[in-house]
């Protein structure tokens, strides 16, 4: 299954339209798209507007490849479950987000194992192809942060609780 997700905040029709065209062109049948409040309704993908946090995690777990905006919820969940990930960053100038931080996120993650960046929707097909080739090779992230970080936070919390 291919899972397309735009996250919990703003719509992202550019990704949904691009993936719908991709699914039609390639004759891909098993594609699920989470489209939020988008105006464009896909004709070649199953779609839902929102997923609970639990159903979102399950959809990532069931996916061969995840195709998403460059949001940290998706990045961390796909990393933890070892799923190859294609990222299309949202662009502020096109009203897709309030800042261009997703471009920074995409640039930072660009060469990490299991992450494939599509800078524009025209790059989606190539990135998906590369991600599929990676298969289960995507790195599996530990479920928690570096103990040095959580340890320092814990010490501060215990100090405040005194």
């Amino acid at each position, binding site marked *: 299954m291919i899972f397309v997700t735009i*996250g*919990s*905040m703003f719509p992202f029709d550019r990704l949904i339209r691009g993936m719908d065209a991709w699914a039609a062109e390639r004759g891909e049948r098993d594609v699920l798209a989470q489209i939020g409040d988008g105006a464009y309704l896909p004709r070649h993908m199953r779609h839902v507007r929102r997923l*609970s*946090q*639990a*159903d979102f995690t399950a959809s990532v777990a069931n996916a061969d490849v995840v195709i998403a905006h460059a*949001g*940290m*919820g*998706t*990045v*961390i*969940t796909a*990393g933890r479950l070892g799923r190859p990930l294609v990222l299309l960053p949202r662009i502020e100038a096109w009203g897709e987000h*309030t800042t261009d*931080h*997703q471009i*920074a*996120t995409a640039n*930072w993650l660009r060469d990490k194992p299991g992450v494939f960046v599509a800078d524009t929707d025209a790059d989606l097909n190539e990135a998906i192809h590369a991600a599929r080739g990676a298969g289960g090779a995507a790195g599996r*992230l530990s*479920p*928690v*942060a*570096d*103990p*040095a*970080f*959580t*340890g*320092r*936070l*814990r010490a*501060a*919390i215990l100090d*405040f*609780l005194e």
Partner: protein
Amino acid sequence: MKTKRVMAIASGGGHWVQLMRLRPALDGLDVVYVSMDKSSAADVPGHRYHTIRDASRRNKAAFLVVAAQLLLILLRERPKVIITTGSAPALVSLILARRLLGARTIWIDSIANAERLSTSGEKAGAVADVWLTQWPELTRREGRQPEHWGAVL
């Protein structure tokens, strides 16, 4: 009895996923969690979990509803410490908790903000006892500087 309670709060999606990666910091403590999605309760078994509505700064009416929800939760739970990974509603909870309960506050700006602090993160500098960015580059700047203690990834 003096409460030793911690409130851990985050918006749904990436903010919550980041908060979950910090859970070893809260191991064995009396922690109450707050987020937006009912199903997230399953991530924190054995803890009380409250939901609030989602609201961005763009929607003033929804924001007032969220502030009222947070007020009720805070008065009921009376945390001594509040920790968050964002976003805007969590900033409101920090301000309320500090003013009403004298709680100590920890703001961890989302790792998504690699080039500058989030708008809420910027404001959090005025109310956070511990004010953190996950990017070391962002500690070097004019004015008050957030600290860098590490990152969720």
